[in-house]
C-alpha cells in the first residue's frame, strides 16, 4: 500500500503519502507500525521523531481497535494516513466504530490523548456517531 514513485524519491521530503486500511483488530496494529517504519525514513524523519510518531499513531489506532470491540454490530476498519508537509508530517487515524464517552479513568487509562499531545505538536480528535478521526501534526 505504500507507494513511492521514482520521481518523488529524488526529493527526500516529498515521498508519496502513505495510506493503509485494515480491520480494527489487535493484529492490525503491528501491520500499521510496519508500514510507518518503512515510510517514515522516506520522509527524512529521524529515529527519535519516528519513535514518537509510532507511539502517537499506535495510541490512536489502539483506541480505534477498542471502539471496534464495543461495536460488534458491524465491521469496524481503521485507516491510517501519513504525508509530508512543508515543515513536518500530517497524520490521520480514522475509524468507523461507535464512540463511547470514557466512563471513568482507572489508573493507566485515559492518558491517551495527553500522551499524543506530548509526542506530536497538534492533536485534533473528532468523535461522531459514525466514527472517530484523529488528526495529528508533527513539526520536524
Amino acid at each position: 500500500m505504500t507507494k513511492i514513485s521514482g520521481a518523488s524519491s529524488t526529493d527526500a521530503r516529498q515521498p508519496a503519502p502513505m495510506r493503509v486500511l485494515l480491520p480494527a483488530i489487535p493484529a492490525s496494529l503491528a501491520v500499521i507500525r510496519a508500514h510507518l517504519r518503512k515510510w517514515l525514513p522516506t520522509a527524512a524523519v529521524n529515529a527519535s521523531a519516528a519513535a514518537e510518531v509510532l507511539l502517537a499513531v499506535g495510541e490512536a489506532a489502539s483506541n480505534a481497535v477498542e471502539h471496534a470491540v464495543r461495536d460488534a454490530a458491524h465491521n469496524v476498519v481503521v485507516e491510517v494516513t501519513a504525508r509530508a508537509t512543508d515543515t513536518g508530517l500530517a497524520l490521520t487515524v480514522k475509524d468507523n466504530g461507535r464512540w463511547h464517552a470514557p466512563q471513568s479513568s482507572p489508573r493507566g487509562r485515559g492518558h491517551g490523548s495527553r500522551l499524543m499531545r506530548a509526542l506530536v505538536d497538534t492533536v485534533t480528535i473528532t468523535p461522531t456517531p459514525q466514527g472517530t478521526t484523529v488528526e495529528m501534526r508533527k513539526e520536524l
Partner: protein
Amino acid sequence: MNNRQFQMSAADAEQPPVVTASGDIDLANVNEFSEVLNRAAADSDTITVDLSEVTYCDSAAVRALFAVAATTKLALIVPAMGPIITLLNISGLDRVATVATRD
C-alpha cells in the same frame, strides 16, 4: 511474537524475579505480557521488569504494569532513548515504580 518475547528468571533468596521483555508490546500480545508479570508477582512482593530491549510499547503495556504494581513493588529498566520515558511520565507509572535507564 514467539513465546521467548517475555521471559521470567526464577527468584532465589537474594534476587527477586526479573521479567525480561523484548520486541513490540501492543493490544495483540499484552495478555501474554500480563501473564508473565502475574506469575513473577505471585512468587515475590517485588519484581524487576526489564524493558530495555522493547522496541515499541504503549498504554496497553502501561495498564498491565499498573495492574501488577497494585500488589507488587515494581522496578523498571527502560531504554535511555525513545519515548518510553514520556509514556511512563504521562501515565504516572514512574510515580508508582522505580525507573532506571539502560543505553
